[in-house]
């Protein structure tokens, strides 16, 4: 009995002594988090979206960075004489595309939704960053609650409520910025890849870049160097959300189009089993009777110079692909909507 009490006493003392540093750390991490800005592009994109006249949107582009680097709404607006908007966000997985579409439908009635499907994100059941990114920019509390309950696994929900866990990465980023500033002030310089040109927010959610892929990404630092696509698989979670998006589109009389944005030619050379990847996605598209356009398999005349890096198009490339897709929509009489 005495031993048991002694243990409980030690445990209580440990708990009491851990409390002050935990409170201090929580404050420290919270402060760091408040100093880290939300991704400016995401913020601006959704500010612009909320500023649109209700029910004026015709085409919505969903997806990851591959979407906002590929589909330029200005080109679609021009060719099709419509109003289109780019909702792609960094690392946006299919689940987040679904909730983005839910939010869009609260304000707009698009006739066409172009869902960009990037194979490298299909194998994740859950990724924290895109969820946090979307929650930080959308206004609808009900959807935020839905995301928290439906998408976040229980353990993630718990973590979200413990600030010294939730904000730890913000603290590390904040301290790193401080450290780098100090070191750079003391003459240390980081190796920077020189690119000529700039990246900027053009409007309607589109991010323009007029520079080309650095030479190092042709081979040395190409992210697909060790990826042959052999073990590609789709997470059940993401697959279910593709079906949910299709269902939602059906209910709202929206023409859904699946598109895979192109990777740089040099990157495609590494992915020996790309056909397997394409066929897996294509099977889903066929099952849902949704048109699927894979720009990795269609020759629209893209060169490595049309890419800003090994996986994203620059402005010139976006121009080529957007024009092609716009005409595909225009010429395809099977598509719903009157263009």
């Amino acid at each position, binding site marked *: 009995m005495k031993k048991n009490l002694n243990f409980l006493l030690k445990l209580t003392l440990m708990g009491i*002594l*851990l409390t002050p540093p935990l409170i201090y750390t929580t404050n420290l991490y919270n402060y760091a988090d408040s100093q880290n800005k939300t991704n400016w592009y995401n913020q601006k994109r959704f500010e612009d979206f909320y500023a649109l006249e209700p029910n004026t949107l015709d085409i919505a582009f969903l997806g990851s960075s591959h979407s906002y680097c590929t589909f330029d709404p200005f080109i679609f607006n021009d060719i099709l004489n419509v109003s289109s908007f780019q909702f792609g966000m960094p690392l946006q997985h299919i689940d987040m595309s679904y909730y983005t579409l839910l939010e869009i439908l609260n304000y707009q009635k698009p006739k066409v939704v172009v869902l960009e499907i990037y194979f490298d994100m299909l194998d994740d059941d859950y990724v924290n960053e895109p969820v946090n990114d979307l929650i930080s920019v959308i206004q609808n509390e009900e959807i935020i609650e839905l995301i928290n309950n439906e998408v976040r*696994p229980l353990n993630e929900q718990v973590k979200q409520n413990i600030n010294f866990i939730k904000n*730890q990465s913000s603290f590390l980023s904040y301290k*790193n910025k401080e450290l780098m500033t100090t070191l750079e002030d003391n003459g240390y*310089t980081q190796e920077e890849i020189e690119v000529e040109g700039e990246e900027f927010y053009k409007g309607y959610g589109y991010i323009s870049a007029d520079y080309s892929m650095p030479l190092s990404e042709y081979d*040395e630092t190409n992210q697909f*160097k060790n990826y042959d696509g052999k073990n590609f698989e789709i997470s059940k979670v993401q697959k279910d959300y593709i079906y949910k998006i299709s269902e939602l589109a059906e209910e709202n009389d929206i023409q859904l189009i699946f598109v895979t944005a192109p990777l740089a030619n040099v990157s495609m050379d590494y992915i020996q089993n790309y056909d397997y990847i394409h066929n897996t996605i294509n099977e889903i598209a066929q099952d849902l009777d949704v048109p699927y356009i894979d720009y990795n398999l269609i020759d629209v005349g893209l060169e490595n110079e049309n890419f800003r890096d090994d996986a994203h198009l620059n402005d010139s490339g976006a121009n080529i692909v957007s024009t092609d897709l716009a005409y595909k929509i225009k010429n395809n009489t099977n598509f719903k909507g009157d263009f």
Partner: protein
Amino acid sequence: MLFNSFSYLVFFPLIVLLYYVVPSKFRWVLLLISSYFFYMCWSPILILLILFSSLVNFSLSKFIYRDRKNSKLYLYLALIINFSLLFIFKYLNFSSEVFINLFNIDNEPFSIILPMGISFYTFQATGYTVDVYRGKLKPESNFFKFSLFITYFPQLVAGPIERAENLLHKLYSNKKFDIYNIEMGLKYMIYGYFKKIVIADRISVIVDNVYNSPTSFSGLSLIIATVLFAFQIYCDFSGYTDIARGSSKMLGIDLIENFKQPYFSKNIQEFWSRWHISLSTWFRDYLYFPLGGSRVSTSRTYLNRMIVFLTSGIWHGANFTFIIWGMLHGVFQTIGGITKNIRFSILDKIHLKNSILHKFISNIITFSLVCFAWIFFRANSISDAFYIVNHSFDDFNLFFDKQYIFMTLTSIHNNLYELLISFGLIGLLLLFDFFAKDEDIHIKLLSANTVIRFSFYYIVTLLVLIAGVYYGQGEFIYFQF
């Protein structure tokens, strides 16, 4: 279910609570059900494979015991079935790939899923059967009790590989609730979590970054990543073992020690007496000794060692990288054995034998050799491993240039602050290991001053809470074996 998952933090306390609430004669049943549940959380269907393996070893052990005349036959049958299962599920994919490439056959290689922990439970079951054959053990008469020995959840997926004589009886013997077991179990577990989620998971991002694209990095980056991997795998695996031992301790069942500060070894032989001890001793007892061990000629002894390390490499994974890793350790030991007398006589002449300097240099050399071998263990392919070996000392003249070091560190991880913290945490771990010397740190701390003991667990717990990696934490490396 991972030890570092939220579900385990719910599952385990519940099991502990139930364990001490149910009458002691039913506790092993609870452990059996929870062990099946634990494994089925990962794959419900593959529990059948464990059950099959258990049934084979249970039945054949009984035959071995009853029918001594044909015992050898039953033993061979058990060994053939055990290793065939291992071959089919672990090596068939690789073998078919090699075969197809070798003979240029236009066929797809096999793609069979690797059941988690198959190498561990197969070795544990094989050890049991061999022990029965050797007369060291009477076979267990209750299949379900035997099944618990094979599936006992704390050590099911990554060991320690237990011997029946050490574990079997503990699983169903009468155990009274003892707060000492709870306290010690918690201590093991928290230290295990410290190693896994504070150090290993933080380092893994850096190591993956470099090893997934070694050609993009400078020589110094390759060296840093290799050294970091040495600590990643140590913290990952010994962290897992600590959590396993802690979990089991809380249930009143002691599991064997698997690690003893391996990076303080002064030669490769000593390293293997401190690293993955349960596997090393398994190979010693069931392979090295039957081959003749060191009671044969010197050259045969070296050959026996090479066979053991080659097998150890193959056990780790179906890839040439693991085979080379195992062979390297065999070669290191062989060279160490051949040159031992010469080295010692030179050290004796210059009065350095067993001096602090000698120990320190031996320690550094051993660590460097272990790291060299880790390159092959971690590399994604043989060509990557050779690239790393060939380019690790590129730009050596710049290794002490501050700007070069800065650029190297910022290239291997985009958060320099976090990288420096990782170095600090490794320093702290080495300090703890140094303090423990050759003992289990938790046992050593029992005799330490209360303030030191309390401070140790206080710091470790605090670091787990505020510095643990809670997002994107990975599986334990040894789960793949």
